[in-house]
């Protein structure tokens, strides 16, 4: 309020650099405010309160809190409300409102929306786009809450879990998470809505406004998304069944499907301690979470579109090695992908890998065992939440010391802002006139 009052005479359209700075400032400063109720009510340290708030607003779902069942209901509501707002991006909401107040939002939107195709516009005006996306977001959340309530959740739990599901956050109002209900019906609803939330919201918008469900079939990213998840569920089900982890095949499929889709889409709900499963299964789930979610969804990671483009580019290089003079354009959905986009995807993937290695090494250097360090880095950078080892579903981030918590907090912000947005502000060139 003070900031706005002092600077309210300085009106001009925001340029690209302003957009980057605003997004980074917003995602660093908003958690300070979001942390106040947690800090003052629960009496936890500032580091843990800020971590909790960043985890909420980045839709990560990592927590340091224990005995969640005993939290005041309003604190639980606040945690889930912030995770819901963070899921789609508070900035997108602001873009829908700020133009009415005389602030252009195009640059903010470009910096914030989680997609490799940031210039894609659904409607001519950016504010209309943001409003459309939010309407879809609110509509799907409402349907999810109704479905949860119908399946047996209380109204409060249904609302909180709908917030957490559609944002792919993974917070729960119970320590036991979805195991609290032990209900295949509720888990089925969660799987359905996690899949919906893992798809591009622009596709939902186009499908709903055009009233044409074939839109989903025309989106190659969604087909890859569903294909990879289906294949992975079958793989992990057979793998767990081979080790006789569960007594029946139905039970194996149920637990494999729920936990895999939850972790892969970066939601982070659990109905079992999957860290007790044979090691390949949780490792595969963590691998998936780094790329499965679609661009323009509420999920984290490098996004399926980038992964598909990387795969196609590698395949093209193989063809080029065999036929050096042939022209092999990289195509997606029948369209040639511009070379500059391929370079951007390569650069992003490189910086993503560098960030992942750097965070893992830093956490390891700080004293964490390698499984915890690596999984915490993956789970934080991809905004997933639970990892393995000390930060697995059987424990939480309270096992980490303050410097380790700060590293994970930074990783969550880095992942949420798709690395470049944050790093670009830290370069000296950004601050030159």
């Amino acid at each position, binding site marked *: 309020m003070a900031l706005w009052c002092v600077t309210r005479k300085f*009106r001009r359209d925001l340029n690209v650099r302003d957009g980057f*700075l605003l997004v980074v400032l917003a995602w660093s400063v908003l958690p300070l405010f979001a942390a106040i*109720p947690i800090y003052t009510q629960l009496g936890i340290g500032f580091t843990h309160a800020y971590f909790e708030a960043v985890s909420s607003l980045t839709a990560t779902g990592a927590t340091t809190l224990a005995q969640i069942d005993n939290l*005041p*209901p309003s604190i639980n509501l*606040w945690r889930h409300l912030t995770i819901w707002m963070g899921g789609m991006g*508070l900035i997108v909401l602001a873009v829908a409102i700020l133009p009415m107040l005389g602030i252009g939002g195009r640059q903010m939107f470009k910096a914030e929306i989680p997609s490799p195709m940031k210039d894609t516009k659904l409607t001519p005006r950016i504010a209309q786009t943001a409003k459309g996306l939010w309407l879809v977001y609110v509509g799907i959340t409402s349907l999810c809450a109704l479905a949860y309530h119908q399946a047996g959740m209380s109204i409060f739990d249904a609302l909180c879990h709908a917030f957490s599901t559609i944002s792919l956050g993974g917070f729960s109002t119970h320590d036991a998470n979805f195991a609290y209900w032990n209900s295949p019906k509720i888990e089925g609803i969660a799987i359905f809505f996690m899949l919906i939330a893992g798809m591009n919201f622009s596709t939902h918008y186009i499908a709903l406004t055009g009233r044409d469900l074939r839109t989903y079939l025309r989106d190659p990213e969604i087909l890859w998304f569903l294909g990879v998840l289906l294949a992975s569920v079958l793989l992990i089900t057979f793998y767990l069944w081979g080790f006789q982890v569960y007594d029946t095949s139905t039970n194996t499929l149920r637990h494999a499907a729920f936990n895999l889709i939850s972790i892969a889409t970066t939601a982070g709900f659990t109905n079992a301690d999957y860290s007790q499963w044979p090691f390949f299964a949780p490792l595969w789930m963590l691998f998936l979470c780094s790329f499965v979610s679609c661009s323009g969804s509420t999920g984290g990671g490098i996004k399926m579109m980038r992964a598909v483009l990387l795969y196609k580019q590698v395949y093209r290089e193989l063809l080029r090695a065999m036929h050096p003079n042939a022209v092999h354009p990289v195509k997606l959905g029948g369209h040639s992908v511009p070379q500059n986009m391929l370079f951007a995807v390569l650069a992003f993937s490189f910086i993503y890998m560098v960030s992942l290695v750097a965070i893992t090494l830093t956490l390891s250097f700080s004293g964490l065992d390698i499984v915890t360090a690596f999984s915490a880095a993956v789970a934080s950078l991809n905004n997933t939440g639970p990892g393995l080892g000390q930060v697995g579903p059987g424990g939480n981030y309270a096992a980490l010391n303050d410097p380790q918590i700060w590293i994970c907090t930074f990783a969550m912000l880095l992942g949420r802002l798709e690395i470049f947005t944050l790093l670009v502000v830290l370069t000296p060139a950004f601050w030159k006139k």
Partner: protein
Amino acid sequence: MERFFPVFRALGLLLSMFSLTLLIPLAFAHILGDGAESAYDIAFSLPWVAAWRSGASPGNSGAT
């Protein structure tokens, strides 16, 4: 520094809007009486206290 003022203006607006969302759990806490009312009172009033402390008001342009 002045070149960042439009960014700070947008940020201030964003923070103000965000502080309004605290009203939802605040109302919820008051209705349920779950003991967390004061936490939201503090969180909600902080931006306004900050505004008052800075001497800013809607009538004060503050463009110095």
